Every structure is written in structure tokens, then in C-alpha cells.
């Protein structure tokens, strides 16, 4: 664990905690820059376009150019806005999504805090995002912002239920909520991942595989809705609401929302990857183990974790260019009539299999 190493190095718990808590930020910002680039490229190529090509080779510096542009932009606060709420909302939204990173195990050597209730903790702190979005929508004093915020809040609160139900399914299976333990348990090879029935031996493993696939689909769909991505992007539906709750924001405050959105995208992808796809575990052995270099293994684990996360981020982008936006009633029907019953039935089936 890096925290212990830092404690040894600095000898001060406060300083090492501080450094430890900054580490995810050094991941999120480059990731957001990369994800913005990836999003543009993926969307461009899926539409037979090229995307940004001017800044740098194949436009790879485009995100930096965007950041420069956003930094220079005027910080506009609309005259009738509720200034306190308007200025505080992006901070709250980003704080909510950043706090989730505290419990995400990036590698066996780094996890912000090894919480026993890591999974539930992430579900809990991401609810701060809802309050932040409502704050932004209300503070902007704009009809579109408020409508977007209310839609977003309704959507996130509804879709938390199937997410939590699938998490409960995982608790029933593994008996732990600790994300680090969850990852270390799915060790050695890909057939130990929970999506392939977990690390239990015997017929349980094979009986669990269909349930796990269902659980994976449910949690992936509901987390997609929680981060307001297409096809569940009615909170920021461009053709209806201008841009939803961040219509009135400009400059760095808009960048905060953007950063929070991409951080959230990675956070939910990381949760899905950690629960069902072995977290930081390699699908096959480690090069470090083979070569006998002990420090190589955490780096490899980080690589696997990041690539799994980015793969799911890619799938989210892929879905964005595949599916049209849902209507509000379809969205709620999807949650209450399909995902929740399926998740409940799935939970009961998993519980029965585990008891038998």
C-alpha cells in the first residue's frame, strides 16, 4: 500500500493522507483529457468522420487546446442566478464524483482507503452528485437547467435501486463489500472472475454464470443511467433542454462539470470492472511473477485496471452512437418494470444457489 510507504517516508499521518488523497486526481485529469479525445475520435469514426486532426498528430493535443480555451473563457454568472448555489454546485458535483475514487482499488498497491463497505460507500457518496445537480439547476435560474436537474435527480435516484440490488447480489455471493478484497479474491485467471461464476468451486460456479451475466447487464445499464450518458441522457438532451443543468455554466465551472462527468464515467466502469471482471487482476498471469520482479506486478495490475475501465468507457461511447435517446416514460418503465424486477429475481436465484 502506498499509504504505508508514504507514512514511512514522511513520518506524518496528515501529510501522507493528503498525498494519498491527491493520487486519484493525478489519474482523473489525464484520464478526462484522454477520454474527451477518445470520445471525439470514437464518435467521429463511428460516423465515418475523422474527428479532430489539426492539433498535433491526429489531433491528440486537442484536449489540451480545449483546456486552454476553457481557462481563458470569461466566467459568466447570469444576473438573476442564485450566486452562492451557482458557484458552489460544480464543486459539489466534482467532490461527489471524486470522493468515489477513495474506495476504488487501482492496484494491489494503491487504494485510497481500504474501506470494509467500499461498494456501499461509492453508492452513498455519488448521491452527493444529485444534490449538486439540483443545486446547479436551481441556482442557474433557467427553466431548461431546472428541468434538466429535476429529470436528472429523478433518474439517478430511480436507477440507484437496481444498482444497489445487484450490489446486494454480489454481497450474497462473496460476503464482502470491500472492493480490494473483492479484487484480490478473483485472482489468477479470468475464469475466476465473478462474471464467470466467481472463485467458488463445484457446480455453484456454473449455475451462477447466467445470473452473473444478467447482473452485469443490469448494473451496466443502471450505472449508464446514473452518469447521464446516452441513451439515458434526457437530463441534458440537447434537442430539448439546450444542455440541461449546465446550460448557464462557462469556463472553468463548466470544465468542472465535464471533469466530474468523465470521472463518474470511469468510476462506474471501475465498479463494474471490479465487481464482475476481476478488478485489477490480470486475465492471465503476470509478467512480474514470471520474471521475478516484485515491483512490476502493481504496475501491471494498474495497467489491467485502467484498460478494463477504459474498455467500459469505450462501450459507453459505443452505445452513445448506437442508441437514440429514451423518452422519460420509457426511462422510468425501463427502471421500474424491467431492471428492478429482473434484479430482484436475480438476487433470489443467486441467494438460492448460494444456500443450496
Amino acid at each position, binding site marked *: 500500500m502506498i499509504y504505508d510507504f508514504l507514512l514511512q517516508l514522511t513520518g506524518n499521518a496528515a501529510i501522507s493522507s493528503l498525498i494519498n488523497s491527491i493520487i486519484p486526481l493525478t489519474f482523473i485529469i489525464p484520464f478526462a483529457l484522454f477520454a474527451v479525445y477518445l470520445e471525439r475520435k*470514437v464518435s*467521429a*469514426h*463511428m*460516423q*465515418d*468522420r*475523422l474527428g479532430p*486532426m489539426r492539433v498535433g498528430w491526429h489531433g491528440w493535443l486537442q484536449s489540451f487546446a480545449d483546456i486552454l480555451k476553457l481557462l481563458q473563457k470569461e466566467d459568466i454568472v447570469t444576473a438573476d442566478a442564485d450566486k452562492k448555489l451557482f458557484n458552489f454546485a460544480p464543486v459539489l458535483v466534482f467532490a461527489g464524483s471524486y470522493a468515489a475514487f477513495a474506495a476504488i482499488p487501482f492496484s494491489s498497491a494503491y487504494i485510497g482507503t481500504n474501506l470494509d463497505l467500499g461498494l456501499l460507500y461509492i453508492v452513498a457518496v455519488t448521491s452527493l452528485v444529485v444534490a449538486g445537480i439540483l443545486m446547479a439547476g436551481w441556482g442557474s435560474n433557467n427553466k431548461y437547467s431546472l428541468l434538466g436537474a429535476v429529470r436528472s435527480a429523478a433518474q439517478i435516484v430511480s436507477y440507484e435501486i437496481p444498482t444497489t440490488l445487484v450490489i446486494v447480489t454480489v454481497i450474497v455471493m462473496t460476503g464482502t463489500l470491500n472492493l480490494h478484497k473483492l479484487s484480490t479474491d478473483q485472482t489468477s485467471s479470468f475464469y475466476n472472475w465473478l462474471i464467470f461464476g466467481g472463485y467458488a468451486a463445484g457446480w455453484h460456479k456454473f449455475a451462477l454464470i447466467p445470473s452473473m451475466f444478467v447482473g452485469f*447487464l443490469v448494473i451496466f445499464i443502471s450505472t449508464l443511467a446514473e452518469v447521464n450518458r446516452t441513451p439515458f441522457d434526457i437530463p441534458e438532451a440537447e434537442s430539448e433542454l439546450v444542455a440541461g443543468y449546465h446550460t448557464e455554466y462557462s469556463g472553468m465551472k463548466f470544465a468542472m462539470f465535464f471533469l466530474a462527468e468523465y470521472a463518474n464515467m470511469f468510476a462506474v466502469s471501475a465498479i463494474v470492472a471490479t465487481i464482475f471482471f476481476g478488478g485489477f487482476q490480470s486475465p492471465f498471469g503476470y509478467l512480474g511473477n514470471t520474471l521475478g520482479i516484485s515491483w512490476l506486478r502493481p504496475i501491471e495490475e494498474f495497467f489491467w485496471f485502467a484498460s478494463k475501465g477504459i474498455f467500459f468507457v469505450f462501450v459507453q461511447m*459505443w*452505445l452513445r*452512437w*448506437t*442508441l437514440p435517446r429514451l423518452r422519460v416514460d420509457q426511462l422510468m418503465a425501463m427502471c421500474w418494470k*424491467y431492471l428492478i424486477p*429482473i434484479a430482484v429475481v436475480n438476487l433470489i436465484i443467486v441467494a438460492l444457489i448460494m444456500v443450496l
Partner: protein
Amino acid sequence: MTTYFKNIYTALYTLFVGMKITFKHLFVPSVTIQYPEVKLPMADRIRNRLYVNMDDCIGCDQCARACPVSCISIETVKSMPTEDLGKTSQGKKKALWVTKFDIDIAKCCFCQLCVFPCPTECIYMTDAYEFSEFERSGLNYSFVTLNADEIAEKKSNFAKMEAEKAAAKAAPKPPKAEEPASKPAGDA
């Protein structure tokens, strides 16, 4: 109940079909043209910037008269009888010095009406479409081949010639000039 499961099946099936299609398109070569480096070939009949081949222009002013937005302005000066202006590529004799041939492309409506009346086919539309300028005056193209000194010379030549002609006209019959003046007096 059957519709319920059918819905789920359709949703998943169509989702995967759609995802397959979009994934295929990820590898379809893109149709984007990298514009300043790569340019699309223009059609032959494209109407873009006007060009005047001054070697062929006889200064007949027909294009300027045909132009509906008066973007062409031509000034000509008669040549001295001694001068030889050469011939156009079609064998027509030139008789006028073109001292001004300006096309204000900012006014141009690209109707191509100036092209048809030209007897020597010296004015035509080209396929050059990148002619943005920082100032509007930059869009006023001048096609005159003569420089300012030459124009001044031609003008003075012409003026001299006119003066000579006038002098020649005036010299032999000076009383004739007074005739009109005296006529009304006579009538009265």
C-alpha cells in the same frame, strides 16, 4: 407476460445488432476531406472567380453592360492609328487600350451572364474558390496589364490626338464654327 419477455429479447437483440453496425463503421474509411491539404476536384462548369484574359480583350464593354450587379467597370482609350495593338487569338483586331478593367468580386453574383456576350471569349469563370481577404477592397480585382505610366501615356496620346483632330477640324474652316451662332441672329 410473453410480451414482457419478448420485449426484453427484442431490446437485447436489437441492441446487439445496432452495436454490431456501429462497430463495423468504426473501421469504415472516413469520408472526411482534409480540406486545405486535400481538395475536391471541381466540376468543369463550376462558377467561381472571374478571370479575364487581357491578351484577348478588345475592350468592347459588353460584359460590363451584361452584368446585372455592375461589378465590372471598364474604361478604354482609343489607340493611335499608328499603333498596332496586335490581334486576339481568334484573329480579331484590337483597337482600344483597356486602361481599367476592374471586377469587384464582392459584388459578383456568379450568374455567368458576362461570359456569354464576350465576342473573344476572354472573360470566363474559373474554379478558384478561395479568395477571402482581410479587407473588402482586396476583392476588387484589376486585370489591366498596362501600368500607370503607360496608361497616362496612352491617355495623353489620345488627348493629343483628339486635340490635333479638333485643331485639324477647327483650322480649315474657322468661320463655320461661328455659323451656328450667327444663324439664330439671322432668324431673329
